[in-house]
């Protein structure tokens, strides 16, 4: 069973002392005794928001990526520069009974403790394994401590869907650079169910020909009044695949583009009840509509798992991000 997770326990939180942390970790292993393998996929540095419970994601993630996880979580209530840490081990049980154990080292950080983080990551990263920094709610490009370890990291994962539009655009600019440490956007993989459901519709003969009569695309996504980065990225994917050109901004949330033989009006709106994508056509036929309710559900770590397994720049994603940058407001 994939989901047979066994906990080896957790040590007590204490002020940061890496030596103590390592002995705590060894103690957890000693207590378990034989029949345990140490996970060795990567060192994953997971940055989580204050108050967020990262355990469900970590437990799900280590099933696909048995790794050492360094989980970093700011806590404004801690005294400045303080870091509290503890260790835990979470194992998956294989059908043979063997346990594969992923170590999680948790660090709760007070304000101003950032400058201590690069040295912690360097010290605890497992030598010879890939080092991946994952930032789901804040921009990895705006954390100076991530910048300090950027050259040592093999991949930096941001999530445009959780960012302000300006930060998302920055992330895509970085992500489309084919040099230096790879920067990936998790939202690309979170949008896969959308791409899949829209793409499948046009496997039908009577529908594919309608793409040449597409005249309106409305993307109702996110709760904010500003354009949701996820909606912009999805529009970017459509535009890059359907070869839209010459975007012209009509209003902050409306863009007109050229397609072969006509024009398409793209509109971005908040998703009030559910996220929705609509296509209108100039052939007078029925519009098409997809909602988030009909999407395939994924495990919490499903999209992240795909991002981590990708070993090269994805030309389709890069094309979508470049088009999203063209469709985005310039200011």
């Amino acid at each position, binding site marked *: *069973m*994939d989901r047979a997770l066994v906990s080896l326990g957790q040590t007590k939180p204490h002020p940061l002392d890496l030596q103590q942390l390592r002995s705590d970790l060894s103690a957890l292993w000693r207590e378990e005794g034989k029949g345990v*393998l*140490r*996970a*060795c*996929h990567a060192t994953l540095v997971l940055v989580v928001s204050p108050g967020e419970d990262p355990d469900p994601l970590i437990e799900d993630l*280590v*099933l*696909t*990526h*048995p790794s050492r996880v360094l989980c970093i979580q700011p806590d404004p209530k801690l005294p400045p520069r303080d870091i509290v840490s503890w260790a835990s081990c979470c194992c*998956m049980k*294989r*059908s*043979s009974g*063997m346990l*594969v154990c992923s170590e999680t080292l948790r660090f709760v950080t007070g304000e101003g403790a950032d400058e201590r983080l690069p040295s912690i990551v360097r010290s605890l990263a497992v030598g010879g394994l890939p080092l991946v920094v994952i930032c789901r709610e804040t921009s990895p490009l705006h954390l100076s401590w991530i910048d300090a370890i950027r050259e040592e990291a093999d991949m930096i994962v941001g999530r445009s869907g959780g960012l302000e539009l300006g930060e998302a655009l920055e992330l895509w600019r970085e992500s489309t650079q084919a040099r230096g440490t790879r920067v990936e956007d998790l939202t690309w993989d979170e949008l*896969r*169910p959308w*791409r*899949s*459901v*829209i*793409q*499948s519709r*046009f*496997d*039908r*003969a*009577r*529908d*594919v*020909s309608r*793409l040449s009569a597409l005249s309106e695309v409305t993307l109702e996504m996110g709760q904010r009044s500003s354009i949701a980065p996820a909606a912009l990225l999805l529009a970017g994917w*459509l535009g890059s*695949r*359907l*070869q839209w050109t010459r975007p012209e901004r009509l209003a902050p949330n409306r863009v007109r583009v050229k397609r072969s033989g006509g024009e398409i009006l793209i509109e971005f709106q908040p998703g009030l009840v559910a996220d929705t994508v609509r296509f209108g056509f100039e052939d007078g036929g029925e519009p098409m509509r997809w909602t988030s309710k009909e999407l*395939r*559900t994924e495990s919490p770590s499903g999209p992240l798992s795909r991002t981590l397994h990708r070993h090269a720049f*994805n*030309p*389709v994603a890069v094309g979508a991000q470049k088009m999203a940058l063209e469709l985005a407001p310039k200011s």
Partner: protein
Amino acid sequence: MTRENPLRDPSEGLESAPPASIVIFGASGDLTRRKLIPALYNLAEDGLLSTSTSIIGFARRDWTDAGFRDAMRDAIAEFSRRQPLDENVFAGLAKGMRYIQGDFDQPDGYPKLAQLLQSIEKDRSDPGVRLFYFATPPASYEPIVKRLAEHRLADRAHPAVRVVVEKPFGHDLESAKHLNAVLAEVFEESQIFRIDHYLGKETVQNLLVFRLDNGFFEPLLNRAYVSHVQITVAEAEGIGTRAGYYENAGVSRDMLQNHLLQLLSMVCMEPPVQFEAKSVRDEKVKVLQAIRPFTVQEAMQHAVRGQYTSGIVEGNAVPGYLKEEGVAPGSTTETFLAVRFEVNTWRWASVPFFLRSGKRLPKRASEIDIVFKRPPYELFRQRTASRPAPNVLRLRIQPEERISLSFEAKAPGQAFHIEEVRMDFSYTTSFGRESPEAYERLLLDALHGDSTLFSREDEVRLSWRIVDSLIQAWAEAGTKPSLYPAGTWGPPEADQLPGREGRRWIAP
């Protein structure tokens, strides 16, 4: 006039297969229930099947569409590696499931099949792939192919029309040639996918990556450094209810002709110029060409066959082969085979390859052991009582998929003890979730039209040439299989094969 879907992008690799109509002949059988439908379900759960996938069951059983769907639902609930069944995923798959009752060799069902395929494909932006899967006894292959041609369901003009053929592919060289000729009347070779599910296993695929994408092992894999190679495919199970098939096949036809020789080809092949079907298969063929068929004398010297008697396997008493249901009294069918090959190429000349396979062995295990030569001078022999062990590169295929390398190390302490230690790579510790089933990979490849992991006509022909020579030699010599108690590693003569050369089998 049809047009391709511009939103479907092949550069996203395995993101999803194209729209497809998968026709399973033998839809009420065990293979469909245990392997094919669970594999298709898992592909759907991974989002790797197009939502425009139709699965059309074709069999004699009196089922309706709904009855077929119910039976397949039960099959997934029982045999899928993912549990519990996801109702939404199944609903998506079931939407495209249809059933046609028909005899494989009677014309009745085929017009209905033609009509159904036409109506399904008409509704797609492009007709997509039409995949005929022969999950039937081999005797049905020929009548099905003929009926498909008669009803214009398959022809060589459409590369997206493909056929997947299960092993055994023929009973001997002549029958394999005949079957190839029957298929070649209707299909191009590029449309024929001869499946050997061993090639869909991760470790087998990884064998090429391991050899050819790492700089440090490939230079060592040759006669200068390798002492010998062992390939073991062991089964703890007996023949179950398959006596009808097994009595006529034996382990030589059931395992050597396909799995064992495929593994041998993968170990021995030269690097292909490209990683694509033709280049890879060209290199595999060269390996089979480099193995000489056995003379009677060579077969007596280099091959041992056995048949299990009663014994204890995994703690349970089991009957001997002759007591199994459906086995003829006095049957001489071999349930164990050990054989020594040489691959006569510049790289491998004079390196022995010991292959063995059998039923009712102590455990289920498949692995390839590449045993390296000892250093030319035993520097530490005077200082240690330990027996010097060769370095062994072990590629384990089942039950768990892993690669390990054993080497010598000084044990800690004042005494100069040298002990064998291992470096281990396990899919489990490095990649987490269990590997997909081999059938998932192979079905997906067939849908994508990638035949790299399938056997080509000449591979099949050459492997039968080798196996036939053994079987004919045994017949000419008039020998019978040696007996071995169930739960042991075959008859004692099998140990003498490597033993004569001062080597021994490595326990999996």
